Structures are given as C-alpha cells and as structure tokens.
C-alpha cells in the first residue's frame, strides 16, 4: 500500500473512469523494467520496425539533419516498460538488451 494520502471513495469518479484522458503520459513506468533496450545507432538502418512495433510509443523518431538519412531513433525510458519487442523485431541486431542495474 502506498503511504501517500490518496483520495477517499467520495472523491473518486464513478465507475473508475479517468477524466483526464491521456494522462498515462505523465506516469513513469521505468520501474517495470528488468532489461532495457539500447539502440546502437551505427548499426541502425532506419527501417522503423522498432518504432512501429513498440506497443507504448516509447521509441522516438528524432528528425536530425546531422544523422544518417536525416533521422535517428531513441528510447523514451520514462515510458518503456522493457517488453523487449523492439529488441526481438530489429532485423539487424541494432538493439541490445541490457540488464537494469539500480
């Protein structure tokens, strides 16, 4: 149980709805991970498969004129839950699967 003061039953919205839709963006889920994906930019062919497959939109496509083909990919570690799909799908092994150390 959390030690912070949470709202009582009278204060909560009916039916457990979330009124501020999209608020999961504010929630840090990095603690879910046991392993984390690490993108090796030199190996990346910009095929975009990691970006497509990521179920949480945690692969970011960064437009960067200096980068190869004008863009590069980064992991949004606040929203990556460590599911490993990007690592599994990358056809050129440009994603490493690194144990989390805390």
């Amino acid at each position: 149980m959390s030690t912070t003061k949470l709202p009582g039953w009278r204060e909560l919205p009916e039916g457990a709805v979330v009124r501020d839709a999209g608020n999961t963006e504010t929630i840090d889920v990095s603690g879910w991970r046991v392993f984390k994906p690490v993108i090796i930019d030199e190996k990346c062919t910009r095929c975009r498969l990691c970006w497509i497959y990521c179920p949480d939109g945690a692969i970011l496509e960064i437009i960067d004129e200096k980068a190869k083909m004008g863009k590069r990919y980064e992991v949004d570690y606040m929203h990556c839950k460590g599911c490993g799909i990007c690592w599994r799908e990358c056809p050129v092994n440009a994603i490493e699967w690194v144990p989390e150390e805390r």
Partner: protein
Amino acid sequence: MPRLALTTNYAVAHAAKDSDVDVVAAYPITPSTPAAEKLAEFVANGEMDAEYIHVESEHSAASALVGASAVGARAFTVTASQGLIYMSEVLYIASGLRLPIVLGVASRALSAPLSIWGDMHDIAPLRDAGLIIYFVSSAQEAYDTVIQAFKVAEDPRVHLPAIVDYDGFVLSHVTEPVETIEKEEVLKYIPKNITWNTLNPKKPISMGTVGDPDWYYEFKYQQQVAMENALQVAVEADEEFGKMFGRKYGIVEPYCMEDADIAMIAYGAHAGTARVAVDKAREKGIKVGLIRLKLWRPFPSEQLKKLLEGVSVVGVLDRAMALGGPLQGPVALDVGTLIATKVPGVKLVSFTIGIGQRDVRVDDLVKAAEMLDEVAKGKEPPEKTVPIGLRE
C-alpha cells in the same frame, strides 16, 4: 393508453419500445425468445427507432450493450437461464462501470439436467453482481417495471444496471390484458438525460481502467452506496409512476399482514398462488399473511423489518436452491440475516417450491401455512429447508 392482450414476453418488449430504447442486442433463448423476436419485429417494422444488434452469444449481447450504454444509449436486452449465466461475466462489468442497462429475464432452470422450464436458478447467483433485481407477478407489472427500472437505473444517485425478472412460461408465455402507455407519456416519466459517464470524442475519458490494491476497494464501495441509494430511488420511482399512470406496487407488497402472526414471503408468479393459499388457511383459522417481495436487490430490509416485527414465524417460499448453504432458499438466507440483525426472536422456515417448474399447488402452500402454524404454537422449526412437491 392502448389496452392490449400480451404475454409477459411481449409486454416486456412493448415496455422497451415505449421507453424509446436506442439499442437492443439479444440472443434468443427459451423462454425469453418471443421477447427478442418481438423487439426485432418492432425495429424491422419501423415501430421502434433502435439499433438491433445481431450477436453470436449472450456474452456478446451484454458486451454490445456495455458499449452502447457507454456512449449514452438507452440499452436493453432479454435473456434467460444459461444465457443469463453466460452474460454474467459482463454484467458484473456493466455494474462496475456504472452503466444503466436494463434486462428482462424470463427465469428458467439451469442445466444439468437440461431443463427449459421455469424456476429462479438463473437469477439467484446474480444476487451479488451489483444489479438491481425486480421480481414481477403479472404481464402488466412486468411492463410497468421495465419502465420503472430505467428510471431507477439512470438516476444519478444510482447508475447501475437493472433486471426485471419474470417466471419462465408461468408468466412469459401467459397472455393477459396490459394497459400500455404512449411513448410520449413514458418519456415524460423517463426523459433522456444522460447523467452517467460516457465516451465522447469532444470530452475524452478512459473507461475500463485497472484498479490496483490502492484503488479497487473505493470503487466497490461506491457500488454498494449506489445500491443502498437505489432502495429509496425505487420507492420514489414507484410513487411517481403511480401518480402519473395510476398503478403502483410498492417494493414489498403485504397481504393480510395487519393482524398476522405468521408471514409467508413469496416472489414472482407464485406469490399469486400463495395469496390464494393465505385465504384458504385463514378459513381454517390460521392467522397467516403474505409478503410479496418485489425488489430483491437492493434488499428492502427496513420495509420487511416493519412487517416482520409483529409476527412469530416467517416461512420463505424460494424457487431456487442455493446448494450447500445453511438453508437452500436464496431469499430465506437473506431473511435469516435480517432476523438475526434486526428482528431477533422471529422463527424462520425455508421452503423450496416450483423447482424445474414442478407444479405449485394451493393445497401445498396451505400445508406450508399449517406447518408454520405449528411452529408458531411452539413446535421446533425444521432445521433444513423443506422441499415442497419433492418425491421421496
């Protein structure tokens, strides 16, 4: 107010039509099928401006109605027996999401052995699902109660799904005269005000969220509070219905209870049989009265308490068996709790009747009254549920 000859199945379909239901999703199952067919006919004929969703199962029917109600539609279905049990997973969800869906249930036995005949084994386990449950005793009452059920379910103090339960065959297939009400009049009683949380792209919300141990308990408690509120709302809905349309029922209906020393509690169609039995037992000098339970959930504890305070023994006539319980009758179990907590000293006898549509005869219920009379005069009440009409 057109007066029509309707079975209870048809009366329930008419009530949905006259309540201007927006979405029906139904899967046919005996003995509720004629109601589903009638609704399909109304929509096909253009008599009812509703979307009729043809689904592949009762589970899907309930799921489709959750979706419909979640966008603010007035949603309705009919089912029975295995169909209700198959729906039940989704009905718990509808209640937790606080969606005011209304269901007509033509109560029927559960397999095995396979029985298409009537009893209350299907509705009994829905007791704890967070749905308002009405029992009705006539086609007219079924018609009126479907309309009242929308009133209660959609009330901002409640926001819970509701079931109008009517005995399979004994009510569902019996034709009676029914006073129907014009849609315009019904809509004055239940105007379409969407007060529950709905999905709307202009004002997005998330539904069906996770409730981890920090959150789940509070939402379940909200449902309990909504159930408690539903009791008073149901009383008010019935009063207002009476004022507008001239018919009201009460959530418990006493008969000959003023001077009764013995009470029988019955629900559904067989409350009518019990009423005749009370008259006959009275002729034999037994001071027995009848309480017809119209609303099972929420349980009308205070109303029953008042009626039971003057009696020495109460017999509950149940049409289902809660197998392995301290007593078999599901309502008897509730009445036992009520006695223990609110009216100590009253003796309780549990009876089962009409299981798998075994005939319920007036004389059987007169014998039950005689047994209760012996208990009232000092005999120890039977420890176990008394099975009426069972072959030894």
